[in-house]
């Protein structure tokens, strides 16, 4: 029983990172139908920003987290402006290749500038382990879970309650109609990228704290897994992305805990394929009927 709860805690903390990343994928996909391959690299940028500000400017954790969110939001908006906006009306596969190009650019640009070696993330918060009924919980795990949940609630509020959030939902339903009722599409899309990228930046700082090591290629695998999470949850759906992230995190730790860690990625993809076959639009996705 205790091992079950132990794995549950580990899975939830890993899952909250995936969930934060998946939110960015799902929002961008919902609004411009683009798989933003560079999203995982924004998360890497966030982790590096945290590394530099904590090491050289001696930021505390909250400040590092918030500044990483702002910087990543700016990076997301800049990428959207230069790389994706010119391709708004191009075939979707072209935009996808551009996103892959941006991803290569960020990964290799960072390797070129700062070297490809792995670095230790500064331990800005001292790790303390609590023992709750035999289950070992570290303060960092609690911090990750609380921060992630807080950010997700904030995001949900922004999308549901603010004017900009309403504009985002309108553009994702029908961009042309949204433009007709006076919504500035470019600004709305930029805002979406800013929101999604800031979540990725926060996830980057949190993962640095959790795993203790960062490198320029760290965004690749979590990025793809987070996208899988977004698809499992139903891409385009914000609660779906959170749920998918937690699901993937839990699944990974579960497979790992039964001693099949070599197959943990395979299990994730297998579950993805099975879910897609049963629910072709993901758990919370809407199945759009095609009209003739």
């Amino acid at each position, binding site marked *: 029983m205790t091992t079950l709860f132990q794995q549950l805690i580990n899975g939830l903390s890993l899952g909250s990172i995936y969930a934060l990343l998946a939110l960015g994928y799902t929002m961008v996909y919902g609004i411009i139908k683009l*798989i933003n391959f560079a999203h995982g690299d924004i998360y890497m940028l966030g982790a590096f920003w945290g590394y530099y500000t904590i090491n050289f400017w001696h930021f505390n954790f909250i400040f590092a987290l918030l500044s990483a969110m702002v910087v990543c939001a700016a990076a997301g908006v800049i990428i959207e402006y230069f790389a994706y906006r010119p391709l708004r009306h191009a075939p979707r596969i*072209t935009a996808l*290749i551009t996103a*892959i*190009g941006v991803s290569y650019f960020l990964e290799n640009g960072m390797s*070129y500038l700062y070297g490809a070696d792995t670095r230790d993330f500064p331990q800005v918060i001292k790790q303390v382990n609590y023992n709750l009924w035999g289950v070992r919980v570290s303060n960092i795990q609690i911090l990750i879970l609380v921060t992630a949940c807080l950010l997700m609630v904030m995001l949900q509020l922004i999308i549901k309650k603010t004017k900009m959030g309403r504009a985002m939902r309108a553009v994702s339903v029908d961009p042309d109609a949204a433009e007709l009722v006076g919504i500035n599409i470019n600004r709305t899309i930029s805002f979406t990228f800013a929101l999604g990228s800031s979540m990725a930046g926060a996830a980057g700082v949190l993962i640095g704290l959790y795993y203790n090591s960062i490198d320029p290629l760290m965004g690749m695998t979590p990025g793809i897994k987070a996208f899988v999470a977004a*698809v499992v949850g139903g891409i385009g759906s914000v609660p779906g992305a959170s749920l998918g992230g937690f699901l993937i995190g839990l699944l990974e730790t579960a497979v790992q805990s039964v001693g099949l860690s*070599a197959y943990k990625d395979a299990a994730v993809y297998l579950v993805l*394929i099975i879910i897609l076959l049963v629910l072709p639009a993901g758990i919370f996705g809407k199945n759009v009927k095609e009209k003739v």
Partner: protein
Amino acid sequence: MKANLKYNICWLILMVAGFYLMNALILVGVIDSFLENMVVTIGINIILAVGLNLVIGFAGQFSLGHAGFMAVGAYATAIIISKTPTAGAFYASIIVGVVVAIIAALIVGIPTLRLRGDYLAIATMGAAEIIRIIINNLKITNGPSGMFNIPQFATWPVVYTMVCITTIIIVNFIHSRGGRAALAVREDEIAAESMGINIFKWKLAAFVLGAATAAVAGSMQASYLQTIAPNNFNIMESIAILIIVVLGGVGSITGSFVAATILGVVDAALQSFGALRMVIYALVLILIMIFKPSGIMGSRELSFKRLFSRKNKKVGAKS
């Protein structure tokens, strides 16, 4: 048959001429081992890109799992010719790889091809990763460290011949009844179905044919490079093939040839830039996509037919 005889003979002459040109350049010493390596890599990429172009560009099914089938072919060849290093075993291993890849493509394709667009892409990507992870954990494939000292049977003439054979098979498929059915599926599934086309069958046919050619390319790579590891066949490899297809133009076979050649040459030319190489490569990729969104060739083809009919028109206009 008769109508296209002239053009087919032109292509045949081009193929044979290309072969002898390569041969002559190697004899004279213009093409050294570095350039030969580049040419063979381009050839392997052409096989892969043409196969993926059939799936994406002609059948309209967005597959991101090409590297998985390539891995199947590569490991079939590697395992077989490491045990029995003869030329006969090499050719048999290509066939074994193709057969296993076809079975794998059927297992992957039958359930997933009912998905659409990006969902299909992510599902095929997952399937390819599962293939890679299985290879990564098997004993016979030597696990994550991969296989090395594979005998080299795939010299450049073999690769060249394979490029020609796979391209001919795919182009013939595209121009057959089945290929036209696949094109109809790409344009509009519902309309195609209402015309009596079994959409699932032709989607699967294109997918399986693409997978079979990917296995051939994998066999070539295993035997030419002589070392393979599971990580050579990860998502990034699938994406690299996708880049060639999109850069050349989705739905243009000659476009894939052009793009594979350009990327191969650029890659070789940037070899001396070290760490900056991939940064430049990424920038070039982004810029090409922004300024030429439909790829180098769009969906057009270089064809002798058009060349001749243009000439005839000019002659006709004069008289």
